[in-house]
């Protein structure tokens, strides 16, 4: 398949998208079903052409067709096969095509799934999704075309190759997960816009998109966790979250989306928070586009590079249009968005959910402000003032702890109103658990946020334990079942509720892991073979320093023997110093890279970095970090994914 066919497919997709919007719009005016069917099929046609274009680009990457600029920039003959595939989303134009590819998968599913459902909502849902496709088709057709030929007056025999940092299996999975999350929110957004246009703001549209929102949230969560995992295992600074603008770009929509998946429960059950839910999904989708803008426009490196790039202003215009049109429609439908019921008590589950939502939005605003402050300061005063992790930690740790507390409080509150008797009955055990934990920790000598975080973790765990126990007790009383049978039946009949509780357990695990950062220890030293050094009670001995030439890099490999205080063997670590593109005659194009080795347990990680080598004298420069409780973050991530899958699993009716 020729690259020209890829360009033609993108052009045809653009043409089909314009026709789809026109035919579907005409259908909404005159109700002619032929126009609706044509619009649907045109939308499927757009997806087909985008699939075709994506497969053609992937094929060119695999074939190393360096006549295409994108292929020459992000792959080389030495690039391993798997990374040739992941090069599809490594650069700007490829990643925008990948955005379109995922949006087309979702659009196709939505159309096929709803052929006999939501006849009033579907035309506008498809129109909204196609308009989003049009925006990305404009970018890929006319601003940054992935099929652009190489701009060279000679035959390009080899490409630049993929950045070594991206040559990691996690990086093959992490961006697709993030994109599946980002793009996934287009579907609930489409339904929200359709509900606004139709003036039907009852819980019907919420019921249609609950699973979609959860699926998108799951992918976004997995993307964020995998991003942290990649940063921890590849970047070599010993952490997994640095409040980097790219990280924040995915975290902000995650926060509003988390608020959304909580507050739609209230609208589904009580028909409250109509306006709030509409605002949350619009904010989430806008932040997804804004996140793509932040990572792709160059605005974070400099305001000047942003204004010089053609992509940034187009993105910003699209974000502006989404906000104006969506909130404009909300204003137009303000009467229909008034919920028929009101909150009756402060001590109700509805209030708990609303308060938790507010805190999520405040946290999102804090991250938004910290992320954009350098850009704003540069634009207004000409000097870029960077806001680093201390700002984010100072602002967000207390907010995060409030959220953790609310995770425990919410399930203990009854719908409508919680009486004093119930309050005492429900809160006694969890509060006593939290207080006992705090007392023990203070007695042992811990202070500050560590005590608060662990105690709240214990409080939330007790809450969830109580909820499971109450549910099992109720079933046993009603149906006379065994504990196991009652647990299985209770979960299978209320998957979203108990799946949600499992997710909360995962969050507790993650908070335990975050708290472990308070005890991190590190040291840098140099060793020759046979020498030793000590960090955090461990002894590190350099046993061997070897060299190896591999397919796409040259490596110095250290063999470190680790023993504990008692002199007992713990593990052998093999961090490497690598030079990628080592055969390149231009030394400036050779890329050094430190490949880490980590010994990990639930208690702590021993994190080794081979930061430099003096090969003439056989000296290895090593950095060791001892990071407690990091594995709790990843285990928490697995629990979160498992809980969401439980909530998503289809139920028998």
């Amino acid at each position, binding site marked *: 398949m020729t690259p020209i*066919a890829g360009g*033609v*497919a993108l052009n*045809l997709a653009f043409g*089909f998208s314009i*026709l789809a919007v026109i035919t579907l719009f005409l259908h909404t005016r005159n109700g*002619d*079903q*032929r*126009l609706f*069917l*044509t619009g649907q*099929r*045109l939308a*499927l*046609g757009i997806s*087909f*052409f985008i699939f*075709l274009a994506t497969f053609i680009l992937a094929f060119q990457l695999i074939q190393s067709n360096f006549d295409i600029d994108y292929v020459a920039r992000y792959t080389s003959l030495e690039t391993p096969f798997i990374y040739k595939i992941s090069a599809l989303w490594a650069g700007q134009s490829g990643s925008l095509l990948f955005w379109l590819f995922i949006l087309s998968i979702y659009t196709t599913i939505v159309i096929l799934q709803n052929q*006999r*459902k*939501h*006849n009033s909502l579907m035309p506008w849902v498809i129109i909204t999704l196609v308009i989003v496709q049009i925006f990305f088709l404009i970018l890929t057709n006319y601003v940054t075309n992935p099929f652009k030929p190489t701009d060279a007056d000679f035959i390009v025999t080899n490409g630049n190759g993929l950045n070594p940092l991206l040559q990691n299996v996690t990086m093959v999975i992490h961006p697709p997960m993030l994109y599946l999350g980002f793009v996934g929110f287009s579907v609930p957004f489409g339904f929200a816009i359709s509900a606004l246009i139709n003036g039907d703001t009852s819980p019907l549209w919420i*019921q249609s998109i609950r699973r979609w929102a959860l699926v998108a949230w799951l992918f976004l969560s997995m993307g964020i966790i995998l991003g942290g995992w990649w940063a921890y295992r590849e970047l070599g600074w010993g952490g997994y979250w640095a409040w980097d603008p790219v990280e924040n770009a995915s975290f902000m929509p995650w926060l509003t989306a988390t608020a959304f998946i909580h507050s739609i429960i209230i609208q589904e*059950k009580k028909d409250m928070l109509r306006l709030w839910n509409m605002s949350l999904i619009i904010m989430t989708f806008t932040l997804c586009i804004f996140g793509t803008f932040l990572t792709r426009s160059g605005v974070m490196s400099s305001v000047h590079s942003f204004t010089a790039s053609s992509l940034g202003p187009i993105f910003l215009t699209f974000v502006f249009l989404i906000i104006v049109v969506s909130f404009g429609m909300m204003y137009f439908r303000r009467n229909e968005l008034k919920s028929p019921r009101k909150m009756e008590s402060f001590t109700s*589950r509805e209030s708990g959910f609303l308060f938790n939502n507010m805190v999520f939005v405040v946290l999102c605003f804090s991250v938004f402000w910290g992320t954009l402050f350098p850009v704003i300061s540069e634009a207004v005063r000409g000097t870029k003032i960077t806001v680093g992790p201390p700002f984010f930690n100072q602002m967000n740790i207390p907010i995060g702890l409030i959220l953790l507390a609310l995770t425990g409080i919410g399930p203990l509150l*009854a*719908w*409508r109103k919680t*009486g004093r008797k*119930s309050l005492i009955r429900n809160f006694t055990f969890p509060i006593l658990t939290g207080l006992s934990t705090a007392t023990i920790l203070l007695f042992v000598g811990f202070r500050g946020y560590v005590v608060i975080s662990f105690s709240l973790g214990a409080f939330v765990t007790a809450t969830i334990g109580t*909820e499971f126990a*109450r*549910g099992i*007790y*109720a*079933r046993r*009383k*009603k149906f006379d079942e065994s504990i196991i049978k009652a647990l299985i039946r209770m979960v299978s*009949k*209320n998957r979203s*509720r108990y799946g949600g509780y499992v997710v909360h357990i995962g969050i507790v695990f993650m908070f335990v892991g975050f708290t472990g950062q308070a005890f991190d220890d590190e040291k840098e030293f140099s060793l020759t073979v046979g020498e030793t050094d000590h960090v955090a009670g461990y002894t590190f001995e350099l046993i061997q320093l070897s060299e190896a030439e591999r397919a796409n890099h040259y490596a110095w490999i250290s063999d470190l023997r680790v023993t504990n205080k008692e002199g007992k063997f713990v593990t052998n670590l093999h961090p490497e110093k690598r030079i990628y593109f080592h055969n390149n005659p231009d030394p400036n194009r050779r890329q050094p890279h430190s490949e880490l080795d980590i010994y990990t347990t639930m208690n702590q990680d021993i994190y080794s970095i081979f930061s430099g080598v003096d090969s003439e004298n056989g000296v290895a420069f090593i950095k060791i970090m001892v990071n407690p409780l990091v594995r709790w973050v990843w285990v928490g991530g697995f629990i979160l994914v498992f809980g969401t899958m439980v909530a998503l699993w289809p139920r028998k*009716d």
Partner: protein
Amino acid sequence: MIDFIRDYGLILILFILPVIFALQPLFLPRIEKIHIQLDVAELKRKKLLIYRQIKELEMEYDIGNINENDFISGRATLKKEVSEVIAALKSL
């Protein structure tokens, strides 16, 4: 001509077939009534959702998250809603 078809046949099929597929409904006679089928599907879905809500309400009551008065009034409201949906289904 044969060479052209051999070289560009696949490309033509890939690009022309979607156009025919998309525009074909425009040549059909005007479709008037598929709304009834859609309405039935929508009402059945609504009925299922209300049944689920009733089950969840019973669960909330059993574990003590709502008091008896709220349970009785909530269940009565949902039962009324489901009766209306069933009546609407029967009328179609």
